[in-house]
Each structure stands twice: as C-alpha cells, then as structure tokens.
C-alpha cells in the first residue's frame, strides 16, 4: 500500500498555500507561498498575518472578515479578486509592491466539529491585471476576459456580502434569540446576542449542539432537532419549560421559552440545517405564576376570614340577649378582627408584636387605667389573630362587667416567657379596684371562644378566676409549636 507524506505534498504544491489558526497566526506555509510573499517560513510561522502584512484599508478589512466568516460558519469562503500590497524586503529594494490576488479560504476541523484552522490558497494575479493594462495586445484577449469576469464576480459577491452583513447585524442584535444549526450533528454556525444571553455566554460556534449544551440532554430538544432534520417539518412550542445553564459555573435554572425550529434547505430542497428562533419568557411566566399564587392565597385568606366572620356573626346572634346588643357585639368583634388584619398587613402578613397588639385592643380605654407590660415578642399571623380576638373579649368583658365598668378600676396585662425550652408565653390579665365579680352561671360565646382559641387552636391552657378583688385569668401558650 502506498503511503503518501501529505506534508511533502503540501510543500510541493505549485500554488501558494498557508494555514492560520484562530488568532490568524501562521501555522504552516509552503514553498510557493514563500516565493510569492518574498518571505521565508522562519519569518512567518507563529507571527500574526496582519503584523507581517499590515493593511488598514478596505482590503485588510475584507481579508479579515473572510477569515472570520470561515471560523464562524465552518464554510469555505473566497475572495476572487483583492488588491493587497506587500512590503518588498530590503535586499530586494524595499518599499511597497502593488499586488493583486485571488484567494480561497477552506476550514480545517479539529476532528470534534470545531474549526481550528483555515487553509488559504492564494494566487497572485498581478500579472493578469497588468496585462489588462496592455489590453490592446490582441493575443492576450482571452486571459483579460477571464480577469474581467473575476472582477465582475467579485463586485457582485461584495454587494451580496454587504447585504448579508446587514442581515447578520440585524439578526445579531434582534430582541429574540436566533441560532443556525448545520448538518446532522447540529453544529452552531450562528448565534445572536440574545441566544448567547440565554445560554450564559458560552462559546458555541462550531460546536455540536449536544457538546455545546450538555445539560439539555434528556429534555427532548435534541430529539426534536433530529426530527426536523429528518422530516423537514418545522416544530416549536410556547412557554416551554427547560433547565438551562444561564451563567458560567451555575447549576441549570428553570427557564421558559417560546421557540421554533425551521428547516433550512439547499437549492435542491435538501434539509441542511435548522433555523432556531424564539423568546426568553422566563420572567413573564414567573410573574404570571407569582400573581396566580398571590390571587389564590388572597382568595384563601378572604374565604377563611369570611368563615371566621360568619361564625362570629351566627354565634353572636345566637347568644345575644336582644338584637341591639347583638348588633353592638358583632360590630365590635368584626372591628377587632379588622384591626388585627391591619397590624398583620403592615408587616406583610409576616407577624405582629404582642405589646402593639394588646395596646391596640385596649386603646379605647383610659391609658391611666390600663398597664401593659411584657417583653418584646413576635407572633405568627395565626396566633396574632387568635390573641387579638381573645384580648378583645377580655377587654369587652372588663368594660361591661369588670374593673373598667367602674370609675376607679384598673387592668394590668403582664407576660413573660418560660425559662425552659420550648418556650411558653405566660400571660396574666388582672382586674383590680372594680366591682366584686362571680363566675357567670351560663358561659357566653365570649368565654367559650377564649377557651376554644387558647386550648384548642393554640394548644395552651386558660384558667379564669372570679374573686371579690376582681376578675383575673392566666393564659399559657406554647410558642413555635
């Protein structure tokens, strides 16, 4: 079997060839290239193309963008006609030498689907151009025609390219995300700014989609791409959920996208790639979801509050002596509930502070006759509402039958926290200097409610004491239970 040394083939090619890497540094040149550029390989290998052959003008820009296109798209690109002057070495007289070239740039993969190098085959067409200036020579006519055709082709190509550049810029800055995938392995050949934002700025160009976005494996998208390529049928979805790495080094995050995969066809109608476009809808979907949650929660609270009010109403009516006292009691109880809601609302329904809660309920009474004393303590919403209602009943009873029903009676509310863990709230309500009291024969709704709230709902204990000195009660409630 014949084994060919391709390095020697490259070296022996009669046409000038060179290879540059992604930084446009020379990796290899052949002898023909050395001759045409009047440089040795030692001068060139490892050096930057534009350091050796600077060109700040239009030609330099065109050459650079041709290289960039090949690296970005993985597709061959050609410059049929380009004027590019190069510096003549000192030993050959120095100065700039006007040259005309025709170049073809071919991508060279790294074996993993990435464009690692570009091979340039360049032909010095200076002689042909000079011949054009001697157009009167009839026997050169054919060659001149050829050159004119090349120049015409280049002009058309440039116009097309400029148009393509405009589109590229539009796509690049479009608000929606756009990517172009090429071939059966879905190699990224284009990804706009919005797409890069979506995937956390990862370098994906030239990579297979499965390598570029490994976290998407198993979420059904690669299979959809395969199907679009196989069937030519477009597909997509709205507010589709996926987990995507949104920033370098981060865990994949829940993301929602509207997207479509549309087949790209070549001239023969064959599907060669996929046009990916869509919108990142994560924020919109999450906002919608938060609103839904808030509405559900609000509805739940309203319904529970209505159920509480309903219970207060029906039991107040049932236990009242007459309609007028029922109306007054009901009103006062609903207002107490409402004030507790105000306190909670002011703290985003997180908690209330016990001193504030007790003082608020007792605020209708003369300040000098009420003493409130206890450590600062935050209560959860449920305990807040429960204790507000309990305080309201105690305060109402004091005003109707107890110490606050006489001219000089006083109420003191003291509490402390138990030493042992888990802590208990130990609250003592004491009425003094009022009329003597005795236990009522029939327990009204108020005292039944206090009992129920404290022992049932709050899991604590309630002890009431009726004595000639006045009413007193002791409430113990486990906290964090």
């Amino acid at each position, binding site marked *: 079997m014949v084994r060919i040394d391709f390095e020697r083939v490259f070296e022996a090619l009669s046409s000038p060839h060179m290879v540059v890497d992604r930084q446009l540094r020379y990796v290899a040149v052949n002898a023909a290239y050395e001759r045409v550029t009047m440089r040795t390989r030692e001068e060139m290998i490892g050096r930057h193309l534009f350091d050796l052959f600077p060109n700040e003008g239009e030609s330099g820009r065109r050459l650079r963008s041709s290289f960039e296109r090949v690296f970005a798209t993985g597709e061959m690109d050609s410059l049929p006609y380009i004027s590019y002057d190069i510096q003549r070495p000192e030993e050959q007289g120095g100065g700039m030498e006007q040259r005309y070239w025709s170049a073809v740039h071919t991508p060279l993969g790294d074996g993993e689907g990435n464009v690692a190098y570009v091979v340039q085959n360049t032909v010095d067409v200076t002689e042909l151009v000079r011949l054009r200036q001697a157009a009167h020579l009839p026997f050169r006519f054919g060659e001149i025609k050829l050159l004119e055709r090349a120049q015409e082709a280049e002009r058309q190509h440039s116009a097309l390219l400029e148009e393509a550049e405009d589109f590229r810029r539009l796509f690049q800055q479009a608000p929606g995300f756009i990517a172009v995938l090429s071939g059966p392995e879905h190699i990224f050949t284009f990804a706009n700014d919005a797409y890069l934002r979506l995937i956390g700025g990862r370098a994906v160009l030239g990579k297979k989609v499965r390598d570029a976005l490994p976290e998407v494996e198993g979420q059904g998208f690669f299979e959809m791409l395969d199907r679009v390529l196989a069937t030519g049928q477009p597909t997509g979805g709205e507010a589709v959920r996926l987990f995507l790495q949104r920033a370098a080094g981060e865990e994949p995050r829940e993301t929602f996208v509207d997207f479509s995969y549309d087949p790209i066809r070549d001239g023969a109608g064959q599907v060669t790639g996929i046009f990916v476009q869509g919108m990142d809808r994560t924020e919109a979907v999450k906002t919608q979801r938060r609103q839904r949650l808030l509405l*559900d929660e609000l*509805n*739940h*609270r*309203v*319904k*529970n509050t*209505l*159920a*509480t*009010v*309903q*219970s*207060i109403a*029906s*039991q107040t009516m*049932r236990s009242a002596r007459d309609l007028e006292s029922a109306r007054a009691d009901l009103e006062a109880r609903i207002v107490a509930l409402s004030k507790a809601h105000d306190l909670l609302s002011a703290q985003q329904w997180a908690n209330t502070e016990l001193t504030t809660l007790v003082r608020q309920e007792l605020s209708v009474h003369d300040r000098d006759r009420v003493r409130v004393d206890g450590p600062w303590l935050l209560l959860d919403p*449920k305990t807040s509402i*429960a204790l507000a*209602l309990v305080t309201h009943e105690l305060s109402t009873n004091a005003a109707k039958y107890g110490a606050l029903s006489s001219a000089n009676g006083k109420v003191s509310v003291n509490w402390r926290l138990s030493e042992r863990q888990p802590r208990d709230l130990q609250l003592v309500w004491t009425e003094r200097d009022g009329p003597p009291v005795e236990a009522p024969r029939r327990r009204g709704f108020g005292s*039944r*409610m206090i009992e*129920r*709230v404290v022992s*049932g*709902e709050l*899991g604590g204990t309630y002890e009431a004491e009726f004595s000639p000195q006045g009413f007193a009660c002791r409430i113990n409630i486990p906290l964090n*239970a």
Partner: protein
Amino acid sequence: MQPNEMPGKFDGLRIFVVEDEALVAMNLEMILEDLGCTIIGPAMRFDRAEAMVGGELAADAAILDVNVGGHEVFPLAARLAEKGMPIIFATGYDQSGIPKEWHERPMLQKPYTSDDVARALAQALPGKRPGVPTGK
C-alpha cells in the same frame, strides 16, 4: 330556610372534625349539633388529629379541613379512607387545592351553611342511617 334533608336523618351520627380555626370549628360544631350529630374532636392541631386517627376512632364520617396549621390533611385522609370512613373536605381554596384522587369526595367550600353541611353528609353517607356500622 328548611334544610333539604329530612329532619333527624343524621341523628346520632358521630362526626370526626378536624379544623384548625377555633371560630370556624365552633360554627361547624353548632351546625352539626343542630343536625343531631355528635362531634368527635374537634382536632385543631395536626399532631392531635394524627393521634386521634391512629387511635380507636369511633366515627361514622369525617369532616377534614384541607390545611391544618400548615400541614396538608391528605395523609390523614388516606388512613381514614383505608378504614372505609366516609370523608368530606372543607377548604378555603377551590377544588384545585385538592389532589385529583380526592375529587370524588364531597367538598365544603368556606364559608359554608348548615344546608351545605347536610348536603355533604348525605352525599358522603348515601342511604346511611344512624347506628348502622360502617362496613367495608
């Protein structure tokens, strides 16, 4: 307004009540007493309800608040359903707050009336009469 059900239909029924809000529980108790039922509980805290479900619970049906002090009641419902106990859910949410497997069960949406409770009981205990033991 007269209840839709025959008076006395629910006499003597023992109803297990789980409801974490004292006032709502009091109202339900009052309604059930008016219907002639005996109340088992009410359990107002999850641990208490759990202990009662785990013990010798002699009840003909259960009315369960869906959310008991931040705990979902469904694990307890499953244990009661295993024993063949008819279950009624009470909730401030609509049906979307209840898992699909429970959608066949009667639901009381808060706030509910005495008629609503009677209807739910009739639905949970079709053809039931007091004193007839709950079979499987």
